[in-house]
């Protein structure tokens, strides 16, 4: 049982490597699903495991043991460390919950501000133009979804490149990518190792929208050029921004551009599902282990309560 409850806490640590490979090899649209569901399952598993650790620790304390109506002391294989590990689990849960609440509040505020801006402006079709000297564009989720673009971004791109941008943002809204990103964000606050899975989810959502845009305009090279030009235009206005990536690595935008310039390779697709299957297996194991562990733990509590025979 100890191992069953430790497994969900350890499995997320191998998830980043699998998520990174899934993002690179699986077609982006299914990859968004696989990564999001895996992140949620791994997050659920680790939260259940942490919860079990906390309850165990509490039931070791006389006060909570009497509240829990325990007739006998709770028998666990990790008696010596039950209270310290429960304290650690409480700490982890508190830190995660605090970060989650802060992030949720901030994002709700951002969304409200963006929606308020769009309400005050005329909308042509699904497009809202903001007269601003900063090149910027984003998909604003809602019913219906909107595309917000600044005049500076409009002028940075030619007409064909703008169509790419519109198709990209429409894909985000049509596939409701913001829900996947919110789910991945939630998971990232449940276990620190799942932050890398969230980043992989963000990247595949962008890739899925890129591919949808390339299909809509019928030109991968044009799509790549539009992304590159938009990125350079946004960058020119932030000379003070710190370098986010070390010299040897490439950031998400060049990877997206390179992926569009490389023709979709069928031989890589065949190998891809194995990574995705491995990630799904990892997530399933986490859920099963935590569920089995929790059921076993519940049984031990009932034994301690004297309700069932040992």
């Amino acid at each position, binding site marked *: 049982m100890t191992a069953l409850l430790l497994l969900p806490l350890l499995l997320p640590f191998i998830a980043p490597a699998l998520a990174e490979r899934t993002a690179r090899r699986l077609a982006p649209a299914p990859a968004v699903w696989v990564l999001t569901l895996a992140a949620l399952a791994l997050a659920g598993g680790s939260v259940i495991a942490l919860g079990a650790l906390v309850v165990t620790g509490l039931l070791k304390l006389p006060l909570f043991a009497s509240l829990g109506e325990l007739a006998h002391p709770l028998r666990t294989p990790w008696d010596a460390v039950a209270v310290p590990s429960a304290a650690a689990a409480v700490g982890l849960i508190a830190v995660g919950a605090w970060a989650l609440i802060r*992030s949720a509040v901030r*994002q709700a505020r*951002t969304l409200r*501000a*963006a929606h308020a801006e769009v309400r*005050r*402006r*005329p*909308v*042509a*079709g*699904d*497009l809202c*133009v903001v*007269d*601003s000297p*900063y090149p*910027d*564009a*984003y*998909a*604003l*989720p809602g019913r219906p979804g909107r*595309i917000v673009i*600044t005049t500076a971004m*409009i*002028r940075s791109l030619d*007409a064909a490149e*703008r*169509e790419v*941008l*519109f198709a*990209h*943002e*429409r894909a985000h809204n049509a596939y409701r990518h913001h829900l996947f*990103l919110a789910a991945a*964000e939630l998971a990232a606050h449940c276990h620190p190792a799942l932050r890398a899975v969230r980043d992989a989810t*963000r990247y595949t*959502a962008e890739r899925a929208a890129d591919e949808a845009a390339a299909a809509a305009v*019928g030109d991968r090279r044009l799509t790549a*050029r539009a*992304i*590159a*030009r*938009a*990125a*350079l235009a*946004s*960058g020119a206005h932030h000379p003070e*921004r710190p*370098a*986010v*990536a070390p*010299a040897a690595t*490439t*950031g998400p*935008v*060049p990877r997206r*551009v390179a992926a569009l*310039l490389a023709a979709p390779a069928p031989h890589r697709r065949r190998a891809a599902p194995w990574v995705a299957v491995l990630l799904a297996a990892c997530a399933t194991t986490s859920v099963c282990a935590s569920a089995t562990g929790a059921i076993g733990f519940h049984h031990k509590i009932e034994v301690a309560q004297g309700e069932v025979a040992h």
Partner: protein
Amino acid sequence: MTNAKDERRPAGELEASVLAVLWAAGTPLTPAEVQAALPHDPARTTVTTTLARLYDKGIAGRLRQGRGYAYFPVQDAPGLTALRMHSELERDADRETVLARFVARLSPDDEQFLRDLLEPEDR
């Protein structure tokens, strides 16, 4: 990229494209000029209808020019609100999650990679 394909485009998408063309131009455009600027080559009548609709909604203004009109985008309240929104949104590191942005931030190496990529096309 044919007229047939364009017929299937929802009217809202064409409205968006036409408004973007008006903003990009900086000077009032006639329906013929708007049509020429659109990459997907819609029918002239479709463009004229769309411009009339933008005018009716108050999104575009128009001036008499020859026998027809030239259209321009209506500027909204001063750029102040835009500046405020930009700073508001820029402050939040978590913004990417709720507002899927077209492009993320670049490192200097990323910029060089993209410049090298665009260079042959810009020549």
